[in-house]
Structures are given as C-alpha cells and as structure tokens.
C-alpha cells in the first residue's frame, strides 16, 4: 500500500489520529504553562520591547490563534502545545539520538516520518504540512513587528506564540523515554488494535491523571546563566549537542540525549537488552520492597489497599552531562507479581514492567527538565536585545546598541505608527541601516529623518527591528535569520506613586531630557488645575542621601510643584525605612516582587504637586520649552485617599494596591 493510500485510508476511516508524548493537558496546562511562567516573557522586558503589555495572562491583550480564536500570550503558547498533536503531526514527534542518521519513526506504509528536530526546525516551505516550525515563528515575529496593518501584526503575534508553543512541545516529547527510543505506543483500541499496534502508554496516562502534582520546579537548571545559554546556543542543540550516533547520548547535553541515555521505556526495558546501549540492567542494584510499605502515605493513594507482596526494583545511575551531576534512580524498572496498574496479582513475576513508582521517580528527573528546556527555548527565541538612544557625544545623532551577548550583522529597520481616516495604528517603514555590531557594543547611525508623511501618531515613538545574523541564527539557515525588536520611546514613563497620601509620582525620564532639565530648569513649568505655576529653579539636594539627585521647585499662591531629578534615573525601594533595592531602568523595577513593592516605598526621579483646597480631582500638565511633555488627571479616592491617575484619554495609569505602573 502506498503512503498516500495509507493516509487516505486513515481519513476515510474517520479517525482523528492525534498523538502526544504527554497528553495534551499535560503539555499545555503543566509543561508549557510552567515554561512560560519561568521564561523571559514573564520575568523581563521581552514583551514590552516588542511594544506589548508585559503580562502573558492579561485578558485585555489577546491575539488570534490559527483557529481564529483570541487568546492571551500564555494561552497561545499552550494552544501551540495542544495543536502540535493535531492531524498526523505525531508521526514527527520521535527522535533516536543513537541512530547515526538521527532518524525518527520508520514505520512502513505510513506518511513520511522525519525526526522531531528536523520537523520542528524545518525551513518554511521545505516540508509539506509543516508551516509551524521554529523558523515559521521567526517569520511571524518579523511580520508582527513590521506589517502595515494592526490586524496583520496581531495575527502574526498570535502565530509567533502559538508556533513557539508547538516547538516546545517537541522538547517536552523528548523528555518522554518512549519518544527518544522509538517505542511506539498506541492506546486507542480503535484503531490501534486494528493496526496491530495496541500498546497503551501507562506512563502518559499516569502522568496526565496526576498532572496537578507534577514536580515542575526547574530551579536546578539555571537557564539564564551563561553555562546554559552558551551550551544551548542554537535551536538544534536543545535536542542534541552531539552529532547523532552512539556517542551522542554518552556525552551529549540535549534533552533527547539525556532521556535516551538514562531511562528505559515500556518497550525497551531491561528485559530487552541490545536495543539501546544504556541504561543496562545491573543485578547489584536489585531492591525488594513490599507494596504495603510503598503504598504507605502514597499520593495519590494506591488503588488497591489490600495487595500484599514484593516488588523488585532495579536502578541505574542518571547522569546529566550538562550539570555534571549523577544521581542514582533506584526505581528505574520493576519486576512484579502485580499488574502494571498495581490493582491485581497476576501470578509469578513477569519480566520487567513499569508502574507508578517507576513513573513517579522518573518524573522527578524528566518533568523539571522538560520545563527548563522549554523555557530555555523561549528565552533563546527572545534573547536578542537592542536599543536606539541619542548619542550624547554627537548631538542630533543616535546610537544603535547591541545589548546582547552575541554579535549582530544585518539590517536595522525603523518603523513608526500612524492613524489615518480609515484605520489606526498603521505601521510605516521609515529608514534602515546595514550594520555589524559586536556583542554589548554600539554604533552611531547618524540622524533619524523626521517622519512626516504620514505624520506619526506619537512623535518620538519607533519600532526598531533587526534581521540578520546573530550567533548561530543566520540568514544562510533562513532568509531573515534572527529577528529582534525594540519599541523605542522618548516619552516620560510614569511608574509609581510615591506614597498613599502623596500628590506625586515617580518617573523615568530619558537621560538626555533630564540633563536638559537640569541645565535649564526655567524652561520647565507645571500647570496644576487651572493655574500655570512659575518656572522652576534649583533648590537643594534631595533626600534620602542614597540618591544622587537635584531638586527643582516652583511655588505660587495657588499651589506648588517640585521635580527631583536623580542621576541616570536612579531609584531605590525602601522597606521599613531601609533601602533594599536600587535600580535605574524599568527593567530593574520589574525584577522587584510585587509583594515587596506593595510593602515598601519607591523614590527616584519624582514630580510632586500641591494645590490649595485639596480638590478631589485636578489636571496636571508638564511643560518644557513650551511643549507639553505629559499630562494626567490626579484623583483622590474617597474611600482610602489613595491616588488615582488617568491619562488625558481617561485610561487609568496606576495600580490601586501597590501603585506600580509602567506606561
């Protein structure tokens, strides 16, 4: 029967042929969710750099998945982890690192089966049916940053995160021993029995049923450390760092190599020596345990509390070539008089089997790594970091900064947004520069042409996009190569109120603007309610002394205003009067746990305003050199006297509870 005929037959039979190393719920709700939570998407400015709200779970920021439904960023990643099992994609979810050709499944008469990494990293347009690979995600990210219409960019963001979820699904598969030992499993009687392939994976069912209590803490893997990022410095190396072949699992550090080397599977257990070089059965590791002891305090409880008798376990050393740590897994495999479900006594000990005690111990090794490698892949995808800032040494010109630890060679494109009569947030290409910038270095790119036609929606706001070679991601691999974005704004950021009863707020001010303030405070004026206060003047150093700071002041009969400008936007978080955290950027602020922010107070570059008669609500406008730099409405909550800020469009700026908001 031809491969095509096989496919047709499956479809005629009306079967939904979906397969997943772990069940879909395990992939989505546990492994991918935890990976997202532990990735840079949650812990850094990766999203705000792309011009997005920095929450991965915010229901007000949703993008369409490929089914057309709007989803949050984390849900898109989870959807990807689910969708990767649709159709016949499961055929590409295996990889045997021992095989010198790096093959996946090789089942006759089924559609083409390629290995997991080849499928997940396929170049767009090169593999029939694969339109959701790592490189498709790269293309989608470029589109999300550069497409003219907002709807196009939103669709592309949806694809970016969903496709990335589909890629990390593969790394999770590689943490299921059957998928790196080509141990086919099929637990639907229909059609598996018909295909003579009925072999349910008890491991997967057990894992899914107990997905609420899986050990997902991957803190043992420092995925942001240089050891990890320098080891896993290409997408492929997450699977295997060594060329496929017998030596690959022996010395490799990829997730497929780790799992293949250290774990047996149902169909490649100790009683089938010779299929794989390791692990091997070692009689000296034999250990007899009574099932009653094993079931004491077992969670979840054992299904049959009345069983009595021994289970014999065999162990093997589990070596992690990345960490260099070897731990002994006493519960690698079992000889048992019980069935695999541990519900019944089935007679004399069978050959080796795997039961819940083997699975539970395997989880402690495999689940944290599945999460860590998935989070590491997300971090890798978003590892690039760039910026566009004024060059203080050459007024009127700008620097492009490569803030990454890899050199960038390619094109830096600059875009801005505009509205027209029919559509809003259209994106317009402005200019570009071909540059090669070493890691952690910068290049002057001269002046930026004024965007005039069409006029920008928000002057001073740009999207800087890099495409080209960065580290191991190159144009030679894929036409665009790596893609990095940075939303650039010269506007002032409001990030927090200073205290619950204050009439002030903390600001991040572009450094070049701060210097202008200090050089010419008389050009600053503040409108409080209906009154425009007199120009500011320098008074005295600020307090507390920890902050290098200059205080400006303006007073009139109707009110007063003060501006404290710290050097290089320095801020400090106090708790019970003790400084506990210093920072200079919005990124620093995001590193502080919300609980700390809520319990402490923040001081930095600050604007204070007072108005006579304490009205419940009044408008504040900040002028410099005759132009409005920013404005907001300040309201006092009647309930707790907390301050509420809204911008000129009525959008609330601050957080009621701990008053932190990056705008």
């Amino acid at each position, binding site marked *: *029967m031809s491969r095509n*005929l096989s496919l047709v*037959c499956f479809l*005629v*039979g009306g*079967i*939904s*042929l*979906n*397969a*997943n190393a772990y*069940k*879909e*719920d*395990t992939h989505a709700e546990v492994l991918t969710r935890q990976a997202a939570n532990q990735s840079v998407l949650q812990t850094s400015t990766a999203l705000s750099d792309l011009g997005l*709200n920095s929450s991965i*779970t*915010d*229901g*007000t920021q*949703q993008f369409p998945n490929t089914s057309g*439904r*709007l989803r*949050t960023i984390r849900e898109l990643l*989870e959807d990807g982890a*689910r969708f990767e*099992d649709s159709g016949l994609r*499961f055929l590409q979810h295996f990889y045997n690192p021992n095989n010198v050709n790096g093959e996946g*499944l*090789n*089942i006759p008469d089924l559609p083409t089966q390629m290995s997991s990494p080849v499928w997940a990293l396929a170049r767009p347009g090169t593999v029939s049916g694969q339109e959701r690979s790592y490189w498709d995600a790269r293309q989608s990210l470029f589109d999300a940053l550069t497409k003219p219409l907002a709807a196009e960019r939103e669709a592309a963001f949806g694809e970016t995160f969903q496709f990335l979820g589909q890629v990390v699904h593969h790394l999770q598969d590689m943490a299921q021993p059957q998928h790196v030992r*080509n*141990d*086919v*499993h*099929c*637990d*639907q*009687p*229909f*059609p598996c029995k*018909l*295909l*003579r*392939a009925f*072999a*349910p*994976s008890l491991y*997967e069912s057990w894992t*899914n*049923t107990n997905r*609420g209590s899986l050990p997902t803490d991957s803190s043992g893997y420092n995925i942001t450390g240089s050891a990890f990022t320098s080891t896993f410095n290409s997408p492929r190396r997450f699977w295997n760092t060594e060329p496929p072949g017998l030596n690959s699992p022996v010395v490799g550090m990829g997730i497929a190599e780790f799992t293949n080397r250290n774990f047996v599977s149902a169909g*490649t257990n100790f009683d*089938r020596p010779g299929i794989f070089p390791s692990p091997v059965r070692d009689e000296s590791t034999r250990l007899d345990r009574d099932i009653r002891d094993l079931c004491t305090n077992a969670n*979840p409880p054992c*299904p049959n509390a009345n069983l009595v008798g021994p289970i014999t376990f065999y162990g093997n050393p589990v070596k992690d070539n990345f960490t260099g740590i070897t731990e002994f897994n006493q519960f690698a495999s079992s000889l048992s008089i019980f069935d695999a479900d541990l*519900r019944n006594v089935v007679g004399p000990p069978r050959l080796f089997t795997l039961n819940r005690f083997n699975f539970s111990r395997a989880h402690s090794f495999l689940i944290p790594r599945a999460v860590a490698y998935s989070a590491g892949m997300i971090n890798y995808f978003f590892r690039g970091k760039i910026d566009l800032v004024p060059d203080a040494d050459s007024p009127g010109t700008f620097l492009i900064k490569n803030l990454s630890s890899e050199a960038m060679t390619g094109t830096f494109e600059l875009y801005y947004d505009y509205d027209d009569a029919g559509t809003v947030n259209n994106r317009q290409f402005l200019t570009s520069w071909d540059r090669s910038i070493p890691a952690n270095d910068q290049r002057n790119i001269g002046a930026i042409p004024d965007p005039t036609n069409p006029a920008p929606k928000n002057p001073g706001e740009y999207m800087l996009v890099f495409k080209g070679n960065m580290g191991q991601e190159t144009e030679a691999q894929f036409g665009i190569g790596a893609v990095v974005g940075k939303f650039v704004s010269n506007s002032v950021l409001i990030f927090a109120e200073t205290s619950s009863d204050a009439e002030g707020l903390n600001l991040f001010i572009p450094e070049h603007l701060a210097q202008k303030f200090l050089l010419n405070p008389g050009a600053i004026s503040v409108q409080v309610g209906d009154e425009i206060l007199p120009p500011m003047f320098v008074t005295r150093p600020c307090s507390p002394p920890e902050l290098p700071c200059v205080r400006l002041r303006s007073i009139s009969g109707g009110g007063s205003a003060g501006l404290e400008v710290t050097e290089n936007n320095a801020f400090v978080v106090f708790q019970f009067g003790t400084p506990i955290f210093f920072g200079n950027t919005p990124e620093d602020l995001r590193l502080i746990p*919300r*609980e700390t922010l809520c319990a402490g107070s923040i001081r930095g570059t600050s604007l204070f305003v007072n108005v006579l008669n304490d009205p419940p609500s009044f408008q504040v406008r900040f002028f410099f050199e005759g132009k409005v730099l920013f404005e907001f409405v300040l309201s006092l909550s009647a309930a707790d006297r907390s301050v509420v800020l809204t911008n000129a469009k009525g959008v609330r700026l601050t957080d*009621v509870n701990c008053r932190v908001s990056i705008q």
Partner: protein
Amino acid sequence: MNPDMTIAPTGSCWVLGVALLSSSLSSHAFVYSAEAIEGWVADAETGKPIEGVIVVAHWQLEGGFEGGSPVNELKILEAVTDQNGRYSLPAWGPKFALSGRLGSKSPEILMFKQGYKFQLLNNDWYRDRDTSKSDWDKKTVKLERFYGTLAQYAEALASPSSSLWVAGVDVGDRSGSYCGWKSFPRMLQALDRLEAEFRTARVAQATVVSSLKANSKYLANKGCGSVSEILEGKER
C-alpha cells in the same frame, strides 16, 4: 524500535475503512451512559457543609493514537450545592459516540466557590474501568480555603479555566460543537464576578470568561448565541 509494536500495513482502503468501523463496534463501547451522582461538599477546616458550591461534571471523549486528545464532550452537567452541601447530577444515556472513546478518568468534576481552592476531581485511572460510575458518588469532598494573594488565586484558577475552555469551546475544532460552555452558566457567572475583582485590583489574569467575551463574535457565528446574555443570566 520494539518490533512488536510495528504498525503493519493492511489491504486496501475500503477494507480498512470497513474494518475500522467494525473494530469500533467490537473493540470498545460506543454507547455510553452514566449513573446519577450525589455528593456533598464541606469546609476542610470546620467540616461544615458549604452552600453555593458550583459543580460542573463533564464526560469527555478522547481520541488519538495515544488517547488524551479531547475530541468531543459527551455530556456536561452543572449543579449547585444546597444548604446541606449536597449536590446531585442526574443519570443520562444512552448516548452514541462514533469517534473517540470516553476516557476512564471521566467524569471530571470541577468545584468552585469563591474563597476556596478550585477542586478538580477525576476518576482513578486504570484500564477498562466502568466509565458509567463516578468515584465521587456518595462521597463528601473537603474544600480548602485559599490563603494567599489575589494574584496567586488568579493563577490557581488557570488550570480549571483551561479545562472549561477545552470542554466548552476547543473541542469544537474536532467535533464541530463550540457551544458546550452554555452548559455551565453559573460557573461562568461566578468567574465573571471574580474577574471583575481581578480587574479592580489590576490582576492581569484571564479566565475562561474573558476568553469567551473576547471570542463572543466568533461564538455567535458558530450559532452559540450571546455570551453576555449567558453571563447576565438571561439565557439558558
């Protein structure tokens, strides 16, 4: 590769098609029913019954070579505990399922009352178990109060929210039925009220409710009617 697990080629297409159907009839049940479920919910600390706990039970058909891929919902039922903490779900069946099979963990039961941890209950998993019975019939479930921040509470709701989304909407990609969410209106209304609290506190956490709202036009186009009317209790 394990040689016993090689998938062997069969004859021709129509033979396979017929065989698949006959296999479906012989190898596992395709007519399902469920016995009624009665249970009680109590506070884990005080042992006192809890009134107003929303209970959603769903029987999910799974597909795929390895199983575990939701393909349809055979039944979704909702109930609310009374002053004695009692809830009951009626028996149902027979119902026919031509694709997928009822996962042995079914029914999955979700329990929610604000201030308590969301509870998700499965049947114990083992092969060939009787799926017409629930392990939780005639049982008392202890709900634990939640101690933590609102943000932590929101995060803890993510898993049940996913279950409700998949059961109520996502299975539609495989079954064509996108309106299952209308079967648990009181759960949605409770989560809607909770999301309002999240918004007030600036906790950015979407639940199944905000997902439904965001996709209201999509769902209306699928013939499901109005999300807002369900949330306002105007439609059942």
